[in-house]
């Protein structure tokens, strides 16, 4: 099994870890958003969705464990890459201009990533059924209580914009890293990156507002 570790510890191996876990998160974001869209069917539909989700039992636990593992791998690998990449250029340029490749998103990945991690902690602390008691209040009531506090509302809205920027570089980047750069599909994937980033930012960002409007 040493060959597995050796493979994963190469530069391309680390990129694969980032890409594969990143793709998992993108898949998660898509399903999470799709599920949360039930709010547009009204408070009861939202509560029913949450109950269906919890009724999955062991399957849900398995998904949670998978996500937690992916998160640990994604974050730890990111930390290693961040410091390795900084060390690779000990003397900085006096003048550093872009040739037109890097984007705001690509340059801020470590920082948007860190902020998203912070958001995940806040999100779990305010909503997770492992932390917040959901027996006396249903998920809709919990959401109303959270978003009625301006601090949380702002944290949620700003975080979704930050997440959008992270997704904008992450999506196409993951495809490129797993080697899926194809002359026919890459232009589409690059556009999808931007479209999905906007969907994530607006889709999730609209949730607190619609919940507050419904209360």
């Amino acid at each position: 099994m040493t060959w597995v570790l050796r493979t994963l510890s190469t530069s391309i191996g680390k990129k694969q870890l980032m890409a594969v876990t990143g793709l998992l998160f993108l898949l998660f974001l898509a399903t999470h958003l799709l599920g949360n869209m039930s709010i547009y069917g009204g408070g009861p539909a939202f509560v029913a969705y949450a109950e269906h989700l919890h009724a999955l039992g062991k399957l849900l636990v398995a998904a949670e464990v998978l996500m937690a593992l992916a998160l640990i791998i994604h974050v730890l690998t990111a930390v290693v890459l961040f410091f390795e990449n900084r060390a690779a250029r000990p003397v900085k340029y006096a003048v550093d201009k872009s040739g037109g490749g890097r984007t705001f998103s690509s340059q801020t990945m470590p920082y948007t990533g860190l902020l998203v991690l912070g958001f995940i902690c806040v999100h779990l602390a305010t909503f997770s059924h492992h932390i917040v008691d959901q027996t006396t209040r249903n998920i809709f009531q919990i959401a109303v209580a959270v978003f009625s506090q301006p601090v949380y509302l702002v944290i949620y809205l700003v975080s979704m914009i930050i997440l959008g920027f992270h997704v904008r570089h992450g999506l196409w980047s993951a495809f490129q890293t797993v080697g899926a750069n194809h002359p026919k599909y890459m232009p589409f994937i690059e556009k999808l990156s931007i479209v999905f980033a906007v969907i994530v930012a607006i889709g999730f960002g609209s949730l607190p507002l619609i919940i507050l409007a419904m209360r």
Partner: protein
Amino acid sequence: MSSKSINLTLKVWRQQGPKAPGRLETYKAENISTDASFLEMLDIVNERLTLEGKEPIAFDHDCREGICGMCGSVVNGRPHGPQKETTLCQLHMRHFQDGDTVYIEPFRARALPVVKDLVVDRSALDQIIAAGGFISVNTGQAPEANSLPVPKDKADLAMDAAACIGCGACIAACPNAAAMLFTSAKISQLALLPHGRPEAAKRALAMLAQMDAAGFGNCTNHKECEMECPKGISISNIARLNREFLKAALASAEEIPAATKKE
């Protein structure tokens, strides 16, 4: 085209040796013909410095026609200067305005240490090629040319990758100082051709291990390399390198070799 003369202020990185501290020094480049190349402009400045009894600015060059890959500095924050798909030796002073201040710095990466002033040691790139950037052929009669058919589209892609002159601009441009574009070009030019397939797995593993050992950064898909490459090498080569490496690491019996670590 009418030629005129311009005056520039240069801020040039001067560094006595690999261990010495370096700093930007200011020089005047006066009466420079806009028909002069960037390197000729440096020649003119150096002549004056020599006459003044000062040490001329050390910079690398050889062919001065954009094919050898020896030249290259970072000009105003851009490797090989502002002109797309142009080496520094092919950049002309007509792209600068009278009175401009021009910053000239060496390619900066831990794996490409400064030898002197603007000259960097690119032997890390040679070592990556030596690790596997070749095919093994027996000597003797040349085989019949048509016995290995090569599809035209594959030949074209291989030629595009083979256009890499190994200058190192991709590394200089990369915010992470990664050498993925270089390595991917050197792997692609062989991986795309039937002649390169027998050793493809071994080559991908060995060249990547050597690249990693040299202390380059990791690619995070900024695309700066493709933008600054004087030969317009595409990052689709990097995706191919990723595929070649994964295939070799996961599906072949080859092991990732230990690299010869550079001192």
